[in-house]
């Protein structure tokens, strides 16, 4: 099956990323575009899931503002998380309601993409029973939360590369008390790969795991007309 990917070269404000996702969600529901995966970085932002609990926020709204961290209630599943530059966020806009549905399930596939990407850089990643996402010996490195509307997915998975992890100290990530957060940088130090090579690895594994041939676009280059607003 053919699909598109669009990578964004500069960090995207969360609201702008959401607007793009919602536009593509509608376009995918109406069959105007094939399955499309967006990959971007965000400016610092804390987001709460659909039923995210505000008691997992450790700062007041004003304190977040002073720290330069935006605060959003997102309609995705999952609990509270942090995004910032140096972290890739994968937003697959996929129709999951038909014959192509995978028996492993979409959540499993997202975890698999993260685990295989870690493997590319010599880091062992694994699942933990009852705690979704991708984990390493040093802590959680990929967080997942998505929404289906008319069985088209949006939101998705974040993967820590070289982002400043202190933003996670302002929340209880995913509502898991006492669980550390890791990045490729904290694990590999100076051997941490450049962000573009991690992006390419994530897209490669998306393509294999979700069984979709990717035609890759960049937000800087020319996009198919159907992707433009």
């Amino acid at each position, binding site marked *: 099956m053919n699909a598109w990917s669009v990578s964004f070269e500069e960090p995207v404000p969360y609201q702008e990323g959401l607007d793009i996702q919602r536009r593509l969600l509608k376009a995918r529901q109406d069959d105007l575009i094939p399955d499309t995966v967006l990959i971007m970085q965000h400016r610092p932002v804390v987001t709460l899931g659909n039923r995210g609990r505000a008691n997992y926020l450790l700062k007041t709204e004003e304190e977040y503002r002073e720290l330069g961290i935006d605060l959003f209630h997102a309609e995705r599943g999952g609990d509270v998380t942090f995004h910032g530059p140096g972290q890739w966020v994968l937003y697959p806009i996929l129709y999951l309601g038909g014959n192509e*549905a995978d028996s492993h399930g979409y*959540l499993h596939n997202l975890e698999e993409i993260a685990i295989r990407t870690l493997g590319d850089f010599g880091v062992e990643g694994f699942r933990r029973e009852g705690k*979704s996402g991708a984990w390493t010996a040093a802590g959680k490195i990929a967080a997942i939360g998505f*929404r*289906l*509307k008319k069985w088209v997915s949006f939101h998705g998975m974040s993967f820590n590369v070289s982002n400043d992890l202190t933003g996670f100290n302002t929340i209880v990530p995913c509502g898991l008390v006492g669980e550390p957060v890791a990045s490729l940088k904290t694990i590999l130090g100076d051997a941490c790969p450049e962000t573009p090579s991690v992006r390419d690895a994530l897209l490669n594994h998306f393509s294999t795991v979700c069984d979709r041939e990717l035609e890759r676009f960049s937000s800087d280059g020319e996009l198919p007309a159907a992707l433009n607003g």
Partner: protein
Amino acid sequence: MSVPQDLFYAKTHEWVSLDNGVATVGITDFAQSQLSDLTFIELPEVGTSFEAGDEAAVVESVKAAADVYAPVGGEVIEINEALDDAPELVNNDAFGKGWLFKIKVNEESEVDDMMDADSYEELCPND
């Protein structure tokens, strides 16, 4: 995966059983299996009116949230309150105890636009 013969199905994976002008609505076994263990189900309020295709409920697992659509138009006259404490009923018995809500339908003929079990089965994966 089970697909009972005597129900009507929507492309968005809801089922309907029609009895005396009242439609009982749930999500299919395929739908629940794709979402894995459900942790919360947001149901409409009794008295809400929907048109066919309106967003009517949200089902949530730990990491996923999915919208459920009203397959037929009408007024919600009953919701499955047991799901408040036991959302897993939808996982365990999607076509039975895991029903979501009941609608007093405006036009019974709307179910004619829905699929029968055989057509629905073709839409779902074969494995």
